[in-house]
């Protein structure tokens, strides 16, 4: 019975159906299933499957995004229950993410935020055109493990370096890992400005983020 429910949960993520995912989450609570287990054994395998299929070229960005929406809907139901039971959802780490100042490109950054969130991170998405100080302040406030910055223009890409310097000035650099991304960003650029991680796509970003937090 529980196995069947878990399979249905995974399927709701693969189908990208937030309504079904939320409904299954409620069912799990009614059945007295540990909400953490519902997330990890029910919904997460669905996310993993979508990620793998995307990497193989069998699924596409709309599948990723809708899987993310379904996952969020499930977590929105399950998280209060976890808190009510006196527990806490174990996250892999806390990420502060945004598109740098002067740049209003949203899609890539939001996709990475979504995938990090469904991949097990607590994500604070600061949106677009984010001032340098906002990155720093938010990172301090939430005790971020990772700061992620997106830039889609070569002209705004340099802001990524400014944020890293500001993190240093604020004495935070040693405590946070920095990830950069966006169309003009290359591995070489990431190295040049002293970022810790870089990925070609949203699925890769999750892998990089996991690596960064496990490396401590």
């Amino acid at each position, binding site marked *: 019975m529980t196995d069947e429910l878990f399979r249905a949960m995974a399927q709701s993520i693969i189908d*990208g159906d937030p309504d079904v995912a939320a409904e299954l989450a409620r069912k799990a609570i009614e059945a007295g299933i540990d909400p953490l287990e519902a997330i990890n054994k029910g919904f997460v395998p669905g996310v993993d499957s979508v990620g793998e299929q995307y990497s193989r070229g069998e699924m596409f960005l709309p599948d990723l995004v809708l899987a993310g929406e379904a996952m969020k809907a499930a977590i929105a139901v399950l998280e209060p229950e976890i808190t009510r039971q006196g527990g806490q959802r174990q996250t892999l780490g806390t990420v502060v993410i945004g598109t740098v100042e002067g740049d209003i490109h949203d*899609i890539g950054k939001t996709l990475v935020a979504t995938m990090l969130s469904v991949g097990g991170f607590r994500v604070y998405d600061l949106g677009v055109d984010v001032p340098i100080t906002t990155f720093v302040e938010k990172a301090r406030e939430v005790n971020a493990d990772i700061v992620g910055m997106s830039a889609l223009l070569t002209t705004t890409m340099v802001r990524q370096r400014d944020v890293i310097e500001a993190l240093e000035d604020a004495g935070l650099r040693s405590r946070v890992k920095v990830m950069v991304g966006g169309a003009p960003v290359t591995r070489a650029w990431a190295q040049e400005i002293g970022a810790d991680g870089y990925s*070609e796509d949203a699925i890769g970003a999750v892998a990089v983020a996991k690596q960064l937090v496990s490396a401590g």
Partner: protein
Amino acid sequence: MQPKLELLTPDLIDHVLGEAFYLLETHGVKVQDAEARQLLGEAGARVDEANEVVYIPEAVVRRALETVPREFYLYNRFGEPVVRYGGDAVHFDPGSSGVHILDPETLEHRPSQTPDLVRLVKVAEMLPQYAAQSTAVVCNEVPKAIGDLYRLYIVLLYSAKPVVTGAFSAQTAHYMFDMLAIFAGGREELAQKPLAVFDVCPSPPLIWSEFGARNLIDLARARVPAQMVSMPLAGATAPVTLLGSVVQHAAESLSGIAIHQLAQPGAPIVWGGAPAIFDMRHGTTPMGAIETAMIDVAYAQVGKSLGLPTHTYLGASDAKVVDAQAGLESGITAVIGALGGINMISGAGMLDFLACQSAEKLVIDAEAIGMALRLLEGVRVHTDTLALEMFESIGFRGDFLKQKITRQLFPKEQYLPSAVLDRGSIRAWEESGRPDTFARAKARVRELLAAYQRPPMDPDQERELRKMVERLALQAGMDTLQTAERNAGRQACTG
């Protein structure tokens, strides 16, 4: 709405047909087969036996046109109708009868052999853009006497798709009908559900050779679809003007239809061709020229005005390697042929004036064909409101990626190319070793060959086919058929 390219006004089509009929009646057609002359003579044509010239009145041709089927289907080996000859249906198949293969490693144009044909057939089998196979290259190591039926044999072994093929002699044509009949369940069943169409060629200008005419008659009587491949060469073996060549094409094809329908009224026949302009600098026959494509669309329009199924040769290139010229000539002409609403467009994979086939080019051409077919689907209405519903709850955020309808409809709206077309980022391209189109095509061919599985074949039918071809091969002086083929299998496995 299927988008269309038309080059001739209705008046001009009438004018073309008028001149073609006039040519048939007054200039005459050389018909080098005695029975064909007799058929035409009995129907009312004036025959000059000494010169083998037949003067065909319009009425004789008009009667023949009345009995030609407006459409017919080609079936795959599982008995399913997969190619519709008729109307504005558009299909593509690889170009046929190449004598060379482009070696993907050395870039040498070397004489093609069985393993090359096997490789081409496997690749084409894996690509849905090709509705049919062709007997894509001749196998140079096989005696010419059985070259045609041997090619068909190889295609039948490795493919379930219908085949665009052709015979090299009257005798072998009958063997080929018998080979196909094994899978159709008999000659009558083959006529009901044809698995192949046979190219049959007039010789420009206005000549039906003994074999060409014989072939028309035999195909008609077997009721196996015939595909006339008239090939005026504008400025050399045909008038220099595009319209002059279209008139010659019409006259050759109309006389072919007359012979064919007199032999067997109601037998299926296709208004096809492979014309080209004549290159005045090099004396070559450029298949990738825009004017070649224009002649094709124009003659197809003439055929359509008569309600006939159509065919042409486009999507080929005259380049010697798979380069930018190959891409642009093949892509442009594939799109033009598609817009012409031509039922079967042969030529993909071809380089060097149809002399050289390339599996790597075949996978690139498949992408051009995918796009051409997408173009034909046109701009469609998928939703009740065109955009209004999708704007509900969007505000001013670019969040359309989150809408279920996006996921549901993007595969219908967008043709999804294979990795042959690079739509990734420059970083991904750099990190994968900066592959150019040809390198990506080579990788794709390797991938397709690895994934290829031979379509299932009834063991009794396979035994019958092998026995028959083996007997013919031994007669033709081959030591054994098995050796050639086993080699084929082995070499094909190594790519």
